[in-house]
């Protein structure tokens, strides 16, 4: 219970902080919108049966993924810049309970991207945004954000030794867009790629969101998405022990 409240409070204040940075925000929301625009044009001109709503949803989740991938890897480094990393490590809770809310907050910014993309689709391209199962749709979005945050947590822990952590995070932007089933159905990808897609929570989050919107069975995908998120957190926690121990040994907590 205490852990849950810690996660919630941590998430709240971190989200508040990130939301208050206009330039970071504008850049993060704006950039995926360009890609969404291209997608809208392409699908509008296309002959395929895939609808513009499909394109809208895919682009929206692409934006959600960008919000996480371009920032989460840098989470620890950010705390170092603020001078708060040491203060955070010096607190009693397990550091995972402190770091996870940070990446969850970063992933939540993705909701701004989602809304912006859908608005672009609705007001500029006139796409009809009716959603079959609105409640499950909303839940699917929450599940996606949570699992993206969990994957971001794994990035944050893995990249902590790299000075250019942000460059590594960016490296994961395009590939996940390509194989996450956002605008490209998995069947079109080479067979050997598909298993990689299957272990990525974004793939299932996207699928859940799409099924909820277009009418299908979103629940299995939603649960799988959350389960994978749990796996990422587990992996991240295991790595975190080693990473922090090494940092305490090397004296690297405040290296800036």
């Amino acid at each position: 219970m205490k852990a849950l409240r810690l996660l919630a409070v941590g998430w709240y204040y971190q989200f508040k902080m990130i939301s208050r940075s206009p330039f970071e925000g504008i850049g993060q929301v704006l950039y995926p919108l360009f890609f969404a625009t291209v997608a809208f044009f392409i699908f509008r001109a296309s002959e395929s049966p895939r609808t513009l709503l499909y394109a809208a949803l895919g682009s929206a989740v692409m934006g959600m993924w960008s919000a996480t991938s371009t920032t989460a890897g840098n989470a620890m480094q950010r705390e170092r810049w603020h001078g708060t990393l040491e203060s955070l490590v010096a607190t009693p809770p397990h550091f995972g309970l402190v770091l996870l809310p940070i990446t969850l907050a970063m992933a939540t910014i993705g909701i701004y991207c989602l809304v912006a993309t859908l608005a672009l689709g609705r007001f500029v391209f006139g796409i009809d945004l009716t959603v079959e199962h609105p409640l499950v749709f909303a839940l699917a979005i929450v599940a996606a954000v949570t699992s993206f945050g969990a994957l971001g947590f794994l990035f944050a822990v893995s990249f902590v030794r790299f000075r250019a952590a942000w460059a590594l995070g960016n490296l994961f932007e395009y590939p996940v867009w390509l194989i996450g089933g956002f605008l490209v159905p998995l069947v079109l990808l080479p067979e050997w790629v598909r298993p990689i897609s299957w272990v990525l929570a974004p793939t299932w989050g996207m699928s859940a969101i799409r099924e909820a919107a277009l009418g299908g069975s979103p629940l299995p995908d939603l649960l799988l998405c959350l389960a994978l998120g749990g796996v990422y957190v587990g992996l991240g926690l295991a790595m975190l022990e080693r990473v922090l121990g090494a940092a305490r040994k090397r004296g690297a907590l405040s290296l800036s």
Partner: protein
Amino acid sequence: MTSLRIFAIGGLISYRALFYWLTFWIFVPSLVVAPVFQILLFAYIGRSAELQSDEFYVVGNAIQYAAIPALFAMSQLVAGEKFQNTLGAILVSPAPRLPLFFGRAVPVVANSVFVAAFALTAGSLILGIDIPLTSIPALALVIVVAAVSCTGLGLINAALGLRIRENAVLSNAIFGFLLIFTGANIPLSELPDWMRAVSEVIPFTHSIQAARELADGAALGSVIDLVGAELLLAGAYLSAGYLLLRFLEGQGRRHATLERS
């Protein structure tokens, strides 16, 4: 002769001095891996939407991605000088401005050419696209002209970067803008009239068209008017960038904003 030396040596030294940040771990992901993924992404989107061929997207994105070094490397160059407070020192030096600045442009152009050429080659190999060997020299020419043209735009961006704080946001916005308006991924016929008009006057549009025709086996002669158009734009953007830089430099001296970070 001095101008030539300033041009060459100044350019080379500044490149090395200011690209210290361009380490292996930044270079490889952003200039080598990312463009290939962008190509794959749009090629597959094209297949998903059943619109155009793989080649359409490979050529379009390979050239469009050359904007990244043109925008970011050039910004870093100018901003880097500002941060290291060498910009003021350079600007008060008696060296003639023109060769000085264009000397700095050359490494950026080279960077862009490399990125486009590599992306085009890699994309073609991965997706199995046949480009006739006879077209390669002409393609090289088209890529160089495109790179020069976009470097001009990069110069304007870098000049603006002297005044605004978050230059990266502007660079990303320009990159996104080019993604849409140059026909890299959207057939120009699909764009509304006003957007098509804008396409005509920005870098890359003509080069991408030319490159696509060349990749299909056309002769250089048939696309020479497109290359010429790009060349004209290159001249226009380079001049505009240079003038803007001089203007802002003058402003900076008047209002002491040069060293402001």
